């Protein structure tokens, strides 16, 4: 079913997989933080190189994640199109100059600044993609809660995330069967239904889903209470592993990336201006 294409863990024998979940989570956060601060093209290209190397190391093949890549490209194209439609002069505003390449119509000029700005914004989003894919497909889901806890988040929140990951396929299956049962009874959600009656019909599907989910909440929380969940301030994790040298190396690289990105931003400003 569709659940297989979502958040799928791909088991490989690689350096990246051997790292602890904590390292991967921390590296992912440091990396996205670094790419969020800066708009400098060179820094972004550097980050992109690092994330491609990490991807190579993980032995995950491109075709296994092609779907995500293509989706992201379509998303970026649409986003760029709308940026251009709404404000063709954003590049000029940011870089302060205006080199018109060609005139389209009305207020729409294609300027070198705008193209450069759109290249940067795409790059900014795209650099994090390989690392994000790695983070999803190289982290064992059962290790994820442990790693959230070890970067300082309360273990109760970690447990919530673990529960969410555990029950997504179940709820997806429930949704599927409920919606098919309701459709067999003539509840229509398709395009030929008026918008508001579509909303009303969706309640017919959501309500059974919510009620089963509320029952589920009761069952699970009773089971957890019986096992004494939440009694102590701390807990241990079956899947937690000790740090090895490679973990410290990866974390070190992550910190260096953030520092470089910060220094460049403070020293040379947020934008790299070739004009």
């Amino acid at each position, binding site marked *: 079913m569709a659940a297989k294409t979502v958040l799928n863990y791909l088991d490989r024998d690689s350096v990246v997989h051997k790292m602890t979940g904590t390292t991967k989570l921390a590296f992912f956060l440091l990396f996205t933080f670094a790419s969020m601060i800066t708009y400098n093209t060179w820094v972004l290209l550097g980050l992109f190189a690092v994330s491609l190397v990490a991807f190579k190391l993980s032995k995950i093949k491109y075709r296994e994640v092609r779907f995500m890549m293509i989706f992201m490209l379509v998303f970026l194209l649409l986003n760029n199109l709308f940026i251009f439609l709404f404000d063709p002069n954003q590049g000029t505003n940011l870089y302060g100059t205006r080199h018109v390449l060609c005139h389209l119509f009305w207020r729409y000029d294609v300027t070198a600044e705008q193209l450069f700005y759109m290249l940067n914004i795409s790059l900014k989003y795209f650099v994090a993609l390989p690392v*994000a894919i790695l983070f999803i497909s190289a982290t064992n889901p059962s290790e994820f809660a442990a790693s959230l806890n070890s970067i300082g988040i309360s273990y109760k929140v970690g447990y919530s995330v673990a529960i969410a990951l555990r029950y997504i396929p179940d709820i997806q299956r429930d949704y599927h069967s409920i919606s098919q049962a309701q459709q067999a009874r003539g509840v229509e959600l398709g395009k030929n239904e008026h918008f508001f009656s579509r909303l009303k019909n969706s309640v017919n599907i959501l309500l059974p889903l919510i009620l089963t989910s509320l029952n589920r909440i009761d069952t699970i929380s009773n089971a957890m209470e019986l096992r004494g969940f939440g009694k102590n301030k701390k807990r241990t994790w079956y899947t937690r592993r000790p740090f090895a040298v490679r973990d410290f190396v990866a974390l070190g690289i992550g910190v260096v990336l953030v520092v470089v990105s910060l220094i460049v931003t403070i020293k040379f400003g947020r934008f790299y201006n070739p004009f």
Partner: protein
Amino acid sequence: MKNNSSIKTVVAVGIGAALFFVLGRFVAIPSPVPNTNISLQYAVLALLAAMYGPVAGGLIGFIGHALIDLSWGGSPWWSWVITSAFVGVVIGLFAKKLNVQEGEFGKGKVAVFVVSNVIAHVIGWVVVAPVLDILIYAEPANKVFAQGVFAAVSNTVTGVIVGGLLILAYTKTIAKKGSLDQE
């Protein structure tokens, strides 16, 4: 008993985030404005926030939305993830007033629910999300505000109509206090 309610919140956040994820990921009806969907998950978020309070609401929004973004294979679009959390927190703040678990959802409570949804979505999508978009991604202001206004309107509509109908139907399944008559 206090302990039990905290366990229940942990579980509700987990299941709620899973619901948010499934609805947002597989049931989204795309709209003409990019990155924006007519999204049923905000109805469920409204219901669960009204039942379990601001902490649960915020976490459901945050975890659910972050998981959706991750599953599309990118780093989460943090400005919008934070906004989902914000919506959950704001609606959750009205939980005590709404007191859904009592099994009553009269006119006064409907009004409170509508107001809470409007406040949450309007401030969330028209103020929080665009400002963060500009700060983090330096996107053009009029684009992010157009997206924000659209998201505010469509999410308020789904939140109020679908969420309200859900609460109404849910409260009907609970036996009300003092609903037994002596014969």
